[in-house]
């Protein structure tokens, strides 16, 4: 699977169960909270009763016996105490609910965030950033609203419904049946409505994600939008996503309100039926007039919790739509499973560095043709290896497999004699480092970005590392030095400078196996040569695999691996390869020399790279 699970096929109960398991805080102290809820709702009934009593009896409104001052004062004081107790209970309930919900959801957010980072690179790249962001931000917020206001109310309402039914039964079983018959279609239709609503709200949440993606893309690509003057078209796309969210939200709400109103109409029908049948029963002598009227009030006692419960269920679908998407993240298998403590730690060989073995490795991107066929390769520990080949020859894929950003479909990649799949993640990342062509920088200082490679490095260490790489002048030339803010995605620096930071970062990480994938492609030739020389010194005692277009790297390597169409077609030292006139490498090299040395615009003869 290369997409993140949307959780769309999780049922309501499954969502709730999974959600509660993932956020155990939600049920912490739930009994006390429920008790508070009961006290609070009891109070909402008792206090009005106390007041009613005072009005009826203390003031003699009903008895006509005149004002009873002491009774009035007594009841008023009782009502006041009742109010205090229920208010306190209500405060406790809300406060506890907020605490439990927020704590539980913070845990869920963080788990989901962590899991997203543990998903395979391919999965991460297929997803839109904006949509992923919405999953750990606004989707979670959606759940919070419901948990605080909805969860308990629902339970209390169900309880009230049952109590209402029992009291009704006590008065008249016939009319109780009438009420239930009237409500049966509603209860029966709830499943249908809930399923529809669940889909509707699912769509709303998905469209929030799409909207955020539509907004974030041109913000990230702000310079392209501006330099091509395509603001209008971009805005149209954003507007479309906004409108489509608006439409989905309106539709979901309308559906929810209509389904809620059906409850109200049902109540009207039930009232009518109770009256009509009640009167007929009355004529038959089974009920008195007073009992019929009393029953009408009982119906209200039954109906309002039904209405509230429907509303809560509707809101729940909204919340669950968000919840599912967050849980969906955690249900997406991390294809690259970290064996954890059971895993092997990579050990460095006696000669320094790690040896590398590709054993019959095959790989295809999901839904694509194979890009590596049966690659078999052994590189000794401490070797400096250059991988060359045309675009699409599989070089970068090789680098990603070597650093376990992906696992091979067939065969195995072994480093230090160990299959990468069995290596403990923490050990792997300490020992094996990839420097990609476009190294990402965080919106922070240069120092913080470099220290990403070694969190313990101090300024002196960083400066020394820069000197070692031949970047001392560059660093010294920056007006703010290590305090330079690199801007979002490092965009305050040039692409070449970003590569320098990424290199420096990798150097500080001090890996046993360093994989450079076009890591200096945007750096000027003089600096690149200097870095190459520095790396040559620094890679002593570690294994390095360098992927490069510029064959100057290959010339300096101990061994050159030539890739073509997903296979290793040649290998050996530069000097040996270049003498084989029929080999792929000789052609590559000839074209490189021509490029390097001939300052002309004439097109050289098409060679192997032309594919």
């Amino acid at each position, binding site marked *: 699977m290369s997409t993140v699970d949307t959780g769309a096929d999780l049922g309501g109960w499954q969502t709730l169960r999974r959600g509660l398991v993932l956020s155990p805080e939600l049920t912490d102290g739930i009994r006390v909270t429920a008790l508070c809820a009961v006290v609070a709702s009891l109070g909402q009934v008792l206090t009005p009763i106390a007041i009613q009593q005072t009005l009826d009896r203390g003031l003699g409104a009903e008895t006509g016996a005149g004002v009873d001052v002491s009774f*009035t004062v007594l009841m008023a004081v009782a009502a006041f105490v009742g109010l205090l107790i229920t208010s306190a209970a209500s405060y406790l309930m809300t406060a506890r609910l*907020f605490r439990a919900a927020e704590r539980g959801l913070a845990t869920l957010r963080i788990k989901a965030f962590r899991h997203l980072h543990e998903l395979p690179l391919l999965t991460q790249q297929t997803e839109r950033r904006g949509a992923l962001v919405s999953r750990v931000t606004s989707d979670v917020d959606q759940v919070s609203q419901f948990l605080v206001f909805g969860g308990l109310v629902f339970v209390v309402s169900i309880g009230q419904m049952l109590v209402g039914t029992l009291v009704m039964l006590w008065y008249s079983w016939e009319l109780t049946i009438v009420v239930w018959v009237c409500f049966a279609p509603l209860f029966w239709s709830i499943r249908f409505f809930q399923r529809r609503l669940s889909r509707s709200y699912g769509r709303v949440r998905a469209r929030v994600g799409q909207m955020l993606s539509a907004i974030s893309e*041109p913000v990230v690509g702000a310079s392209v939008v501006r330099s091509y003057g395509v603001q*209008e078209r971009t805005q149209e796309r954003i507007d479309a996503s906004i409108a489509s969210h608006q439409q989905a939200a*309106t539709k979901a709400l309308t559906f929810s309100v209509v389904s809620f109103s059906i409850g109200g109409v049902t109540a009207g029908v039930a009232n009518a039926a109770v009256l009509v049948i009640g009167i007929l029963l009355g004529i038959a002598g089974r009920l008195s007039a007073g009992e019929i009227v009393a029953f009408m009030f009982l119906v209200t006692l039954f109906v309002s919790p039904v209405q509230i419960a429907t509303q809560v269920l509707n809101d729940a679908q909204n919340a669950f739509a968000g919840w599912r998407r967050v849980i969906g993240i955690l249900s997406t298998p991390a294809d690259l499973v970290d064996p954890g403590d059971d895993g092997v730690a990579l050990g460095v060989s006696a000669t320094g560095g790690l040896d590398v073995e590709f054993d019959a490795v095959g790989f295809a991107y999901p839904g694509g043709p194979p890009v590596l066929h049966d690659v078999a390769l052994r590189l000794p520990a401490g070797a400096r290896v250059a991988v060359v080949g045309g675009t699409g020859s599989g070089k970068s894929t090789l680098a990603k497999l070597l650093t376990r950003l992906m696992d091979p479909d067939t065969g195995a990649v072994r480093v230090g004699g160990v299959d990468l799949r069995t290596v403990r993640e923490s050990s792997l990342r300490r020992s094996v480092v990839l420097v990609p062509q476009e190294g990402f920088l965080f*919106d922070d200082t240069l120092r913080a970005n470099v220290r990403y490679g070694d969190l313990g490095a101090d300024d002196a260490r960083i400066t020394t590392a820069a000197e070692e790489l031949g970047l001392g002048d560059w660093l010294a030339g920056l007006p703010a030095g290590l305090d330079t803010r690199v801007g979002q995605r490092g965009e305050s620096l*040039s692409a070449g400078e970003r590569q320098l930071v990424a290199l420096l970062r990798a150097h500080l990480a001090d890996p046993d196996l360093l994989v450079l994938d076009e890591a200096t492609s945007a750096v000027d030739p003089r600096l690149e040569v200097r870095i190459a020389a520095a790396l040559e010194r620094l890679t002593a005692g570690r294994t390095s695999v360098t992927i490069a277009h510029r064959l100057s790297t290959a010339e300096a390597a101990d061994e050159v691996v030539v890739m073509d169409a997903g296979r290793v077609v040649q290998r050996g030292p530069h000097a040996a390869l270049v003498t084989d006139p029929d080999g792929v490498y000789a052609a590559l090299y000839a074209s490189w020399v021509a490029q390097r040395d001939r300052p002309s615009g004439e097109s050289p003869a098409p060679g192997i790279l032309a594919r």
Partner: protein
Amino acid sequence: MSTAPARGTTVAGFRILGEGIRAEPRVFAVSVVGAVLFGGLTVADAWALGWATEHGITPALRDGEIGTGVLVAIAALFVGIALLRALGVIARRVGAGVMQYRLQAQGRRAVTRRYLALPMSWHQRHPTGQLLSTANSDVEATWGPIAPMPMALGTLAMMVIAVGQMLAADVVLALVGLLVFPAVITANLAFQRRSQGWAMRAQQLRAELSEVAHESFEGAQVVKTLGREPEETARFGAVAHELREANIRLGLLRAVFDPLMSGLPTLGVLLVLLVGVGRVEAGATSPADLVTVCYLLTVVAFPIRSLGWVLGEFPRSVVGHGRVAEVLAATGEMAFGTRRLPTPVRGDAGATLELRGVDYAYPGADTRVLRGIDLTVAPGRTVAVVGATASGKSTLTTLLSRLVDPDAGQVLLDGVDLRDLAPGELARAVAVVPQTAFIFDDTVRGNVTLGLDVADDDVWWALRTAQVDDVVAALDGGLDARLGERGASLSGGQRQRLALARALVRRPRLLVLDDATSAVDPEVEARILAGLRAQVDTTLVVVAYRKATIGLADEVVHLADGVVRERGTHADLVRRSESYARLVNAYEDARDDAREEVRA
């Protein structure tokens, strides 16, 4: 605006509501009518039961029979009221929802329009994640009070009538009862004052959370390759925990406020009772009037509670509105002129580019990246800009497409200062291909045309010239193949060539390539450039390191430390300038050095 005191919050909250009502008066009216209908029909239920008792139950049980007509009337009455009330509910809630979502959409459109209009320098200061949060969460918060508002307004009539009746029954008791209002207002002010700081913090933290998440997901590969998942999780977790605390604080305030809003009217009733008993004893009022005032006060409780729901949303609303307003009020977007470029004889004939004494420093930086740059490129000529890493080359290209304006001096195209050009005019004539290609989550065609109306043949021509047609042809769907966000399915070199095709299809009169083929194989690059020179007459500015690329240029400009060090042909510069020669001959020098070493 966001530091206003509590009364400010209430006033500001109402002002925001007013703004919403003015924007959507009709839907709002529907919604309020629905609320009134709902309120009225709730009372009607009691009346209907009375009518049914009088005309149905009592005579039927007395006479032992009942006419079908009466039964039908009773049934029709209850069902009718229920239907009408349902209609009221639908009108109120759907109306409020439509209003809320319309206002949200409108806010989002306004905010994103600003995002597109504001300059690059503004974007550099505002992290993407934060901007997402403003467009989503802040806009949503702004219109939060809309949903409960029609209910509050619909019950307002109920409140006014009840208060009038109270005053009519007994002025003294009514006044005692009305003490509820100042109490509610005081409670509300206290709530607003205490909530506001936390509400602001919560919205700020929501934005930060979004910022950390967005950045972290963008940098996922680096996080993974360096095994920094625990640190990233800690960074996200820290903000998530702070947000949790802020939300809990807000929740605690809500936990006090909600029971207070429902308890105060009850308290009022009790107060009226106590005072009333004395007055009844003294004969100043009748028990019936006391009962009436008490009863009416309980009626008032409901509107107060629904008003409480509206007021409870105010702190978030005001804070969200403030954050949105900040974006809407942000300035610094580029001013445009009205001038058009002179029409060339042929559509894609090269333009003249001229830089006069151009200075540029990044905002907030002391050092100028470019100093006194003078440069003229005649139509159809090719100039290579060569310089060490960080010498100011990329900055120069951003000036040419007017992503930034120079601090001093002028950039002129066909003699017209770029700042005087009408909107859209520059983009029609100039195309810049940046170092790092940006691919949209769109089809190949969409990425190349960016909405420009061009025939597929032209798209294919551009792809062919950029040497990426075979790649596209191999994609499932060809021009219609979707590329995924940032073109994740393509290699770096393929992305660069696609970006080049995007520029070419526009037949620009000035084409600027900022090391735009660095990830492309040298030979493919050579063919691209050769094809370019052969097929288009555009004026070409290339930032390059490779000699084959430089060799194409009629003139080379050597940029060092932000100034033009030398200019001339490549051969000329290699002879004249030692630093230039060292830069471009680095590979050969390195090889020669290596050979020397071997020999020695």
